[in-house]
């Protein structure tokens, strides 16, 4: 059984159908990168996987559990599925340590005595152990994004979703975030990424999914997909992304 099973998912906002029957499986330990033009439905699909959006038709299952906004144990489900956003979304009024430990403490995952050690551990994994007492506003964009990743890691998720996490960063800060994600990939974390970083997609992903007009247009291993796109839409997208 795949970790994530997406079956014929449709999603409409007003009169605009953003997802038009998307089907996709993601196996445990797999790194799937979703690419495509703006408006192709990539981010919406990611938000549906985490029940931030409800699907209008079709079905999403994660670890066999049917996902929707009113599912029982939604909070517990979300503790197992981490999502990192383009805009970091750190809590500006909490120091880095508290940003990381807030959810583990409030959800009872850890007790107060272990909180700082947990924060230190996940911060070490993203190379920011020395920033444990900093305010988010004192960090660069890349550092904030790495703290956002650390905050998800503190919940020990089974699946990580990344929604264009480098799009808001200055070019010189992109590398540090990608490096952290690469390390997570090597440790066997199941990841679904929406990204415009073609180099990263090519080097790290097990599979590339090209979305176009709300559908999975083409998918396959990166080497094959980038070298021999089967559809003119993907060929044109790859050419424009170079």
């Amino acid at each position, binding site marked *: 059984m795949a970790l994530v099973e997406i079956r014929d998912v449709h999603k409409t906002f007003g009169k605009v159908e953003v997802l038009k029957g998307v089907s996709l499986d993601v196996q445990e330990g797999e790194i799937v990168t979703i690419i495509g033009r703006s408006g192709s439905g990539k981010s919406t699909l990611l938000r549906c996987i985490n029940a931030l959006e409800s699907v209008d038709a079709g079905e999403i299952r994660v670890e066999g559990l049917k996902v929707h906004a009113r599912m029982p144990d939604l909070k517990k489900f979300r503790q197992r599925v981490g999502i990192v956003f383009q805009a970091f979304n750190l809590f*500006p009024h909490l120091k880095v340590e508290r940003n990381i430990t807030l*959810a583990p403490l409030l959800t009872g995952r850890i007790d107060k005595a272990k909180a700082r050690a947990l924060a230190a551990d996940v911060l070490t994994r993203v190379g920011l152990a020395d920033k444990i007492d900093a305010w988010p506003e004192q960090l660069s964009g890349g550092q904030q994004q790495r703290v956002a990743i650390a905050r998800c890691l503190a919940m020990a998720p089974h699946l990580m979703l990344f929604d264009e996490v480098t799009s808001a960063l200055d070019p010189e800060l992109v590398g540090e975030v990608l490096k952290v994600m690469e390390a997570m990939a090597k440790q066997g974390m199941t990841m679904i990424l929406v990204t415009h970083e073609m180099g990263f997609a090519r080097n790290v992903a097990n599979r590339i999914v090209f979305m176009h007009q709300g559908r999975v247009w083409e998918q396959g291993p990166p080497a094959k997909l980038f070298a021999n796109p089967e559809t003119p839409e993907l060929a044109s997208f790859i050419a424009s992304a170079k």
Partner: protein
Amino acid sequence: MNFLPLWRYQNQLIDGAIVTLELTVISALAGLVIGIAGAVALKGRITPVRWLVRGYIELFRNTPSLIQIFIVFFVLPNFGLKLPAFEAAAVALSLYFGAYSVEIIRAGLDSIPRSQVEAGQCLGLSGWQVFRHIILPPALRNAYPAVTSQFVLLLLGTSLASQVAADELFHVAGFIESRTYRSFEVYAVICAVYFAMAMSFKALFAIIGLAAFRWPRRR
């Protein structure tokens, strides 16, 4: 100009100032609770409750505070609720302060981006946990300057309670003036007292603000 005749009334002036402070603080605290509850109700999904809160805000923000105090003091006894002058003024001023606080705090809550809420939800937090730990602190910071300004207006507005004979500062001043016939001196003194109290509160709020909202502002 002769301030000496006022000297023997210094205890009454001090007592009046204390009553003014009590009236202000009690009304502000009660009004703040009303403000937070009303703002949450305004953001809620229950339409009749939203209408009710909206009606309350419009009623209390668009009628004179003096009439509100009179209604509580003179009209409510007809319905079986008879309150002494201080309590009646406190109830009316709490409702008055609450009506402004609802809008100020609602604006503060609205200033928190939706993405912050989603980030909290995605970490598996409950609605209450997201509100308490993620939305409320920065919302209160954003609302704080307006709330403190409103507090000073409330402090000055407590003088209206003199009209139902609550023993606050302005009422005491009227009493002293009637005894001494030193209008200028009496009102100059209580003006200075109101000014000193207002400036002291402003300084206090600035210190509280620095202590309570220590995180750096967005660049």
